[in-house]
């Protein structure tokens, strides 16, 4: 189910390459600076690295590598839209994409599965339904190769 204009609602429209078609075809979007080459997620008024306003749109890679990670053990404060009542702890990672940007993301995997350097892949998914009952899309990443044997680690 889409919004009235035939497009998906999202958590932030400028993060996504398109708001139409199969979810598997939607990618993260951003800009690349024409002066220094620095990428960004979403649209920015100027390059955060060199301050140049000369930017071109870019679509970011689906595949990346896990730079580091943590786990959110308690329900995040405020208007959290993930699994709630009961809250389900979830891993969070800093995902390095080949364009040269690391993106903070929810990880769709077991709490003990993340490892520094593991291959991961984008997953555009329905985070929640808005007041009109339409799905609101967000992004997360999951291991490129699902683990078959994960042990709880400290």
């Amino acid at each position, binding site marked *: 189910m889409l919004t009235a204009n035939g497009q998906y609602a999202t*958590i*932030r429209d400028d993060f996504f390459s398109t708001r139409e078609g199969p979810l598997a075809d939607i990618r993260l979007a951003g800009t690349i600076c024409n002066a220094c*080459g*620095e*990428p*960004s*997620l979403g649209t920015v008024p100027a390059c*955060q*690295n060199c301050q140049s306003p000369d930017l071109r749109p870019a679509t970011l890679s689906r595949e990346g590598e896990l*730079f*580091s*990670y*943590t*786990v*959110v*053990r*308690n329900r*995040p*404060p*405020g*208007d*959290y*839209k*993930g699994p709630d009542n009961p809250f389900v702890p*979830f891993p*969070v*990672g*800093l995902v*390095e*994409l080949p364009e*040269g*940007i*690391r*993106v*903070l*993301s*929810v990880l769709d995997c077991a709490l003990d599965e993340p490892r*520094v350097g593991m291959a991961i892949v984008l997953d555009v998914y329905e*985070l*929640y339904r808005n007041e009109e009952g339409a799905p609101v899309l*967000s992004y997360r990443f999951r291991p490129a190769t699902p683990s078959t044997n994960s042990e709880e680690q*400290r």
Partner: protein
Amino acid sequence: MRPVYIAGVGIHKFGRFDDKPYTQMGLEAATMALADAKMPWSDVELAYCARMYLPATSGVKILGQLGRTGISIVDIEAACASGGAALVQACMAIASGAKDTALVLGVEKMPRGFMDPRQLYEDWQIKTGLSQNPIPWAIRARRHMHEHGTTAEQIAKISVKNHRNSVHNPNAMYQKEFSLEQVLNSPLVNDPINLFSICAPNEGAAAVVLCSGDVAAKYTDAPIEVAGCAHKVALYTHFSVPLYTVSARVENPHVTQLTCGEVYEAAGIGPEDIDVLEVQDTDAFCELEAYEHIGLCPIGEGGRLIDDGTVAIGGSKPVNTSGGLISKGEPVGASHLGQIHEIVSQLRGTAGARQVEGAKVGLAHVIGAGGNCAVTVLKR
């Protein structure tokens, strides 16, 4: 520019004071600092109030109780570095010759638990759950462990040290020792950071009275020199709340390194000259990282300083003799000025059981949301 001196300091205990308004806590800290400086309120030419979670014109509401003298009183906010940002403004006014005296007050009364995420995050960050303040520290900690072999035990030992120091600090929220096992077995908040290694937002106030060398003799015979004081915001891209991306191509110096660099140059000292330090310990890893960025050791070797006792009282670089924010709690507007209170006590030799023998030079450091960082070096 001319030298700036601290003539007096005051503090209201950090903790929870449900029935006490911020106007009273702030007033007590300011009054104590003025009494310590032997300076009448009518001599104060300029005042700043550092606070983040309090209403408009908090400084006027607090200090106006002492009488309306017509001076400029301005509230300042720079997240966890608010107190440092306010101190910089007052020091510049005196160093430039524009003013001879100034009072800097920090005060806070924060809600319990996680801070209101709307102060710091966009809607989508709250909805996805990427809005917990320890996340960037936790992710940095995990990477530090991966790259440098830092262990959960080393991080926990910093919490044990700070709690041990707090036992002798009546102004700390928690004055209680915890064993390494108790810290390591406390519930995880954001792995590897657990509950007993993290600071609590709370309430409290601290104040500093500053003056020029021209008038110092009128107020005190033991002035402490503000040898350097700077506030900076991190360069692209320092991973802190509320950022959600970091560059993998560009690496700039950490904001603590940049701020310390500016202060070391102004003070004509280096990290080797510092006798006692109060540093930001939002969590225990945050303190470990600060050892490296302040220059107490090379990058990656922070864990060694807790293992070999360097940063304990009795070591060559004692850190957080007050118990740190882990023990005191973090009333963000007041935290840096609370650190200044501790360093001044150390340099005066009045820190009691926490005293670092012969301390002559002390450093205070805060860092937080938005990449805000402040560093102050004091000399006797």
